[in-house]
């Protein structure tokens, strides 16, 4: 069924609301099998077919093949090496680029990719073109691919203006719960409790296991995770608040996350929405792109939701050895120079406990999970 094609509601910023599934249908209606095909290779065309479609003679078709070939765009052989910018180029782009490269050569000692760049490139490209061993895991032709930016909850002051985010690819036919399970947030790994008196007994349960509730908010509907008995409707408070007075929010609804796929949603591209878990850990979500799947994309269903970009966070190191990532944080610590103070496991024990394991000095100790743990 054709609706109007998605278009801007706020120019260059975000679109009007539309049904994701309808977009897929619209495109599939307008395109033919060759456009949608995910085959790795396509056969070359016969001149007769070209002639038929263009309404010209077969000889013309053959001539076209020659006249329009890519070879017509390549000039003499002397520019074979793409690393070398030709000396006498008439292109402004190249003149500017050459200057920039020369400037870099003056200032940089070693010109190679740093580990952040290597990681970023790997993440972006590692799944390209991957096909599954099992054909049932192959993504279907005409499937929609959504690109989502999931922002980190603001933890550091320095991130106030440019919030760091992860970029995830999901398929239109995937359930919301699949995305929810794939979101890795440091707040899920928190261990609650003060353990200065019993450092060896930090409990096994992390927050993720204890507080399973979560919801997505898209266009007036809260999609709550209700798969487990412990899950609660976190959106209830908001809905009650909205309904208590005429606040102008219209009809907010609450439904089950596990009953919906991305194709079922109505949403705007480029508009901020919300993911909330752990009761108060909130992530902004923006859908930046929706398009048809292509044969060069990752075609293994099992790899989706696919993380293609994440923000590199520097881990906090132990105050003592400055080598290992901090695993403990102390407050009101008579033995520490700062409050709060971070320690790795070894240094923490060496400083705060004697050989028999008795607590030395006064302090409060909490297990610490660094946000950079996902690097």
């Amino acid at each position: 069924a054709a609706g109007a094609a998605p278009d801007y509601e706020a120019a260059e910023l975000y679109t009007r609301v539309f049904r994701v599934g309808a977009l897929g249908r619209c495109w599939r209606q307008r395109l033919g099998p060759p456009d949608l095909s995910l085959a790795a290779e396509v056969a070359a065309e016969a001149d007769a077919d070209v002639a038929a479609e263009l309404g010209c003679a077969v000889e013309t078709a053959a001539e076209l093949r020659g006249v329009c070939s890519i070879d017509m765009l390549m000039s003499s052989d002397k520019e074979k090496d793409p690393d070398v910018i030709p000396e006498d180029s008439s292109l402004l782009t190249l003149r500017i680029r050459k200057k920039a490269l020369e400037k870099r050569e003056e200032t940089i000692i070693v010109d190679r990719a740093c580990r952040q760049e290597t990681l970023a490139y790997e993440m972006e490209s590692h799944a390209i073109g991957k096909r599954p061993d099992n054909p049932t895991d192959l993504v279907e032709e005409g499937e929609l691919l959504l690109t989502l930016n999931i922002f980190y909850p603001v933890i550091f002051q320095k991130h106030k203006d440019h919030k760091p985010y992860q970029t995830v690819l999901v398929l239109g036919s995937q359930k919301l719960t699949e995305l929810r399970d794939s979101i890795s947030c440091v707040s899920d790994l928190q261990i609650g409790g003060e353990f200065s008196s019993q450092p060896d007994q930090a409990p096994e349960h992390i927050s993720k296991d204890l507080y399973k509730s979560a919801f997505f908010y898209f266009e007036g509907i809260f999609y709550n995770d209700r798969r487990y008995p412990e899950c609660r409707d976190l959106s209830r408070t908001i809905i009650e608040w909205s309904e208590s007075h005429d606040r102008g929010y219209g009809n907010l609804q609450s439904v089950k996350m596990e009953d919906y796929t991305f194709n079922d949603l109505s949403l705007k591209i480029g508009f901020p929405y919300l993911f909330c878990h752990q009761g108060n850990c909130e992530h902004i979500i923006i859908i930046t792109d929706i398009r048809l799947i292509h044969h060069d994309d990752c075609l293994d269903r099992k790899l989706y939701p696919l993380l293609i970009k994440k923000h590199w966070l520097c881990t906090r190191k132990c105050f003592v050895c400055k080598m290992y990532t901090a695993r403990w944080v102390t407050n009101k610590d008579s033995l520490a120079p700062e409050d709060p103070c971070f320690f790795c496991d070894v240094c923490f024990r060496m400083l705060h406990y004697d050989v028999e394991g008795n607590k030395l000095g006064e302090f409060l100790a909490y297990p610490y999970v660094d946000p950079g743990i996902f690097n």
Partner: protein
Amino acid sequence: MSSVPGLQADCEELLGAFQEADTVRFERFAELWRERRFHTIFYGRIRALERNKLTKKTLELAQQYFLPPYAFQIRVGALYLLYGLYSTQLCQPKQKIRIALKDWPEIQRFQQDLIDSQHYDAAYIFRTLRLSRAFHFTAMPKLLNYRTKKKIQENEFKEEFKDPSNRVNSLITNDVLEELMNIHDHYQKMKCVISADKSQPDKALSLIKDEFVVTLKDITLEHQEWQQNRMKLFLNAKETDEISNKKEEGILLESEGSERANALARIKYRSYSAVVEASKSRRHRQVKLESSESGSNYGKSPNRSKKNSRRPQPARRRDSLEVK
């Protein structure tokens, strides 16, 4: 995304040369491309991550010339440009050309036009791109990530590349004129029916000009002519005066018709070119260059313009059309 420095200039230079060649043949385009060794635009010691980003931005820029409001010849040039950039890019696998759903019908129409006009090379190239799956079929042309703080780039694309804006013609089409004529006739007949003398309406009922539809048609035609002249004038003036400021351009474009008017306008431009720009804090009260030539009839209602319609005057009226 920030733009690739120099790229817009290079693309516009190539498209401009193609426009001047006054043809839509790929052979000619390929010649111009080879002259400039355009395939080297991807060269330089660039690592893979950067190269991906660069290529995406390059294709995104070229793609913008492929859609309206650009003139037919520019759009064909853009198609060839996209073909060239897509085929000669260094990324593996290749970066794709994005096509939004809202633009697809227009592109289909364009392809059909090419086939109907027997521009086989252009049609063949579009077909080739499509068959080699060079496109991503998307919801929107660009990725949208709610960048409110980032300055939205005002890409001032060249005026010459655009088809003269056809707002008047798209509003007052032949169909509309025909319909208006019918309604007008019907109206006249109704007036006769309720008048004392059945052969003509009462004087008291004469509220609009009888030939108003004909006049409207004339005005529309004049507007079209004026636009075409304006384009020619603009191109001439550009060669001699190197206009870059749109304000000055506006003044120049106002003159049309006779040579004398042209000369007058040029003199005025020169003498007014010393306008002082208001300081930044008073930008909103920028000095406006008002034309001293008498106002036109374009902004006035049709029934008042008939007498002057033979000597159209340039206008800077921004009032909406009044219709009694």
